[in-house]
């Protein structure tokens, strides 16, 4: 994926300059704070300053599309929240700097710190939903807990909730969850893919009979999502499922891993986030559990998850979807139009990493949804309700991926009023001690014959509880 060209070398130099600038800013500030503190490095502080929502003023006139950005740059989940937010913001800045906005409509945005806490996430949602000339375009809650909390609100506010690769698995059903968009995959898809994969390497899913699969999960709505699917598959194939919850934030897992040592599962599926992931890998090292038998969900497979464990993480696998690590054409553009102009959101270390790229893809899909919606509603700032049409008529094909500079970072995706997820495909990447290496020839697609009835049943139950009348997509398409 990464080409060692002169351009990329130049890019690195540019990034170093940006980083130097950050450091210089820091040193000045730190010297004023305390002499002892001045020994520290300043990139983090500089990065926080860069991440501040200061760019709104740059937008002009009435042609503004407002994007709220729920992020977490502090707290237990910051190591994962920071690169995602940086990628997301850098792409929005790129669209403004390179294209002059979305078909001339400039993007404005404001970041709001959630700390990955549901209450603060809801507060951010409430604060930002009415901003901008047409209100919030859409929300990326970046937390399944926040997603659960704001789903009910979205029906009233008519603002789409985009949860690509996370959120409620049953929200694929657009006829019930009219405002949720779990683009690209849900946790049921991810769990299904993992079972298929370990089935394949065991010689077929029928060979899973009698085997043990342990799910080490974040004891939260996020971590609990895959359980229903794994239980369903367990009934089908006869493997024993061990459920091992880890309480927030996941820094104390000794009891969990001692149980793994005793039970000796054939595979461990890791459903962690933030510091929980690296702690799991460290505990696996400490209890001697083979890392190559561990498989993380796509939120447990980024650089901050493995680097703290050092060499111990070698051989650890995780799902990867939408955006593996590396750099492509879009990165060159970001260097040219954003970093070189001194407008970078993050420091150079995280540039091109898994979560940075995923944030970038998330922003790109959001921008493309607006672009798509403009076809129907005109090239002007759109409301959340209008953007929904773009999200459920998303059609990013291979040609579009290439045109946008995302070749190799995602697979084509198209959605509909009924199917709010669109196509879902993932691979497996393995940490080789220095970088993530995507396993060649492994392309996983979840078995919808198993998942569809589950989605149907769960969405039906939700609709019953909340008294939601199903949308008639056929009728809506004729309007």
């Amino acid at each position, binding site marked *: 994926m990464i080409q060692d060209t002169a351009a990329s070398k130049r890019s690195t130099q540019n990034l170093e300059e940006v980083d130097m600038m950050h450091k210089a800013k820091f040193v000045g500030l730190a010297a004023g704070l305390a002499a002892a503190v001045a020994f520290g*490095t300043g990139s983090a502080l500089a990065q926080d300053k860069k991440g501040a929502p200061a760019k709104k003023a740059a937008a002009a006139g009435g042609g503004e599309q407002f994007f709220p950005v729920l992020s977490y740059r*502090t707290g237990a989940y910051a190591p994962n929240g920071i690169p995602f937010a940086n990628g997301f913001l850098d792409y929005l800045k790129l669209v403004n700097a390179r294209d002059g906005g979305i078909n001339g409509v400039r993007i404005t945005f404001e970041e709001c710190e959630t700390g990955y806490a549901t209450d603060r996430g809801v507060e951010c949602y409430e604060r930002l939903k009415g901003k901008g000339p047409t209100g919030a375009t859409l929300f990326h809650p970046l937390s399944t807990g926040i997603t659960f909390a704001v789903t009910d609100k979205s029906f009233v506010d008519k603002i789409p909730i985009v949860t690509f690769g996370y959120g409620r698995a049953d929200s694929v059903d657009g006829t019930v969850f009219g405002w949720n968009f779990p683009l690209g995959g849900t946790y049921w898809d991810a769990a299904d893919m993992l079972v298929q994969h370990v089935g394949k390497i065991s010689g077929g899913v029928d060979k899973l009979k009698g085997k043990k699969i342990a799910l080490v999960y974040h004891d939260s709505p996020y971590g609990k999502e895959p359980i229903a699917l794994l239980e369903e598959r367990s009934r089908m194939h006869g493997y024993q499922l061990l459920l091992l919850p880890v309480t927030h934030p996941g820094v104390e897992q000794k*009891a969990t891993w*001692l149980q793994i040592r*005793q039970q000796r599962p054939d595979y461990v599926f890791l459903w962690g986030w933030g510091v929980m992931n690296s702690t799991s890998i460290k505990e696996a090292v400490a209890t001697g559990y083979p890392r190559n038998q561990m498989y993380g969900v796509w939120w447990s497979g980024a650089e901050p998850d493995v680097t703290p464990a050092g060499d111990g993480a070698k051989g650890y696998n995780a799902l990867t979807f939408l955006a593996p690590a590396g750099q492509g054409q879009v990165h060159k553009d970001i260097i040219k139009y954003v970093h070189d102009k001194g407008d970078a959101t993050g420091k150079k270390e995280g540039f091109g990493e898994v979560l940075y790229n995923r944030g970038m893809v998330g922003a790109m899909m959001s921008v493309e949804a607006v672009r798509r919606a403009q076809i129907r509603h005109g090239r002007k700032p759109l409301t959340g309700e209008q953007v929904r049409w773009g999200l459920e008529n998303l059609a990013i094909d291979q040609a579009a991926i290439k045109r946008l500079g995302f070749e190799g970072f995602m697979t084509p995706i198209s959605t509909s009023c009924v199917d709010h997820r669109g196509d879902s495909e993932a691979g497996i990447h393995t940490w080789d001690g220095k970088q993530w290496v995507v396993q060649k020839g492994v392309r996983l697609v979840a078995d919808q014959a198993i998942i569809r009835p589950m989605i149907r049943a769960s969405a039906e139950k939700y609709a019953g509880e909340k008294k939601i009348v199903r949308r008639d997509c056929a009728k809506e398409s004729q309007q």
Partner: protein
Amino acid sequence: MARNWPVVLLCAALLVGLALPLATGASPPGFYVEVLLGGLMTGVLYSLVAMGFALIFKASGVFNFAQGAMVLFAALAVARLAERMPLWAAILLGIVVMIALAFVIERVVLRPLVNQEGIALFMATLGVTFFLDGFGQTVWGSDIYKIDLGIAKEPVMVLQGLFQGGILINKEDVAAALVAVALVAVLALFFQKTATGRALRAVADDHQAAQSIGIPLNRMWVIVWSVAGIVALVAGVIWGSRLGVQFSVSLVALKALPVVILGGLTSVTGAIVGGLIIGVGEKMAEVFLGPVLVKTFDLAGGGIENWFAYVLALLFLLVRPQGLFGEKHIDRV
């Protein structure tokens, strides 16, 4: 002794609970010993944080809620400084930073509050907590940083002849236990044998009385906050080496709260014993009690070790409000 029967009864009940998994054959002996050892080792690490609480309370009567934040701040300082210099130098400089912090806290927060109610001082430390959490991350960053003590992470198997599969021992945990023991010994000597230690104890008994006999209150507070800062640094370095240095390290302090409740706020020994009881209790509960509760009552499931630590502390609080080793508070009316 006769009045202590609730404590005896509680201890007996806990011991029975502790022995049950083994007695009923619910656990193989090897695994049981591993969980027990794992609990003890984690307990030692809780003790390290709890000792910081006990030290400041013992010497200044302040319940320092900021101890967890100090652990994080110290660990962040050492981890980031170690990127630019050898670890030993980073630790030394880290100590300087913590002493500087003690000076600042004494000057800015404590001095204006001399002779105020305990609750006012407590609230002030709450403010210090949020400040340190945020300031630490702003200055040093929010990523996960490494502290490499050079101790092998791979487990060691011992007693393979006695138990099937052997007993798993983690060298890092053993090192942490040894450091904790050494630290306790040094602190005990400091408090019992030095003039400063005695002065600190006098200050703890009564600020005004201590001041009236010429003990410089301000200096004493700087000293005790510095010592607590150094203890925080040791805890931070060990925790940081195990988990990586990140914001979550400060949350470990939440585990030290039940430890000091159980052990007694004024006792370093209490912090050690309390830490061990909480460590063993929560691990045993998570591994053996949790599944039984889920099965028996058909519960949704979930980790229980976090709240079980507080249940244990509450039980002790009910039967012995001052904690196992705390000084009984008697007011004359």
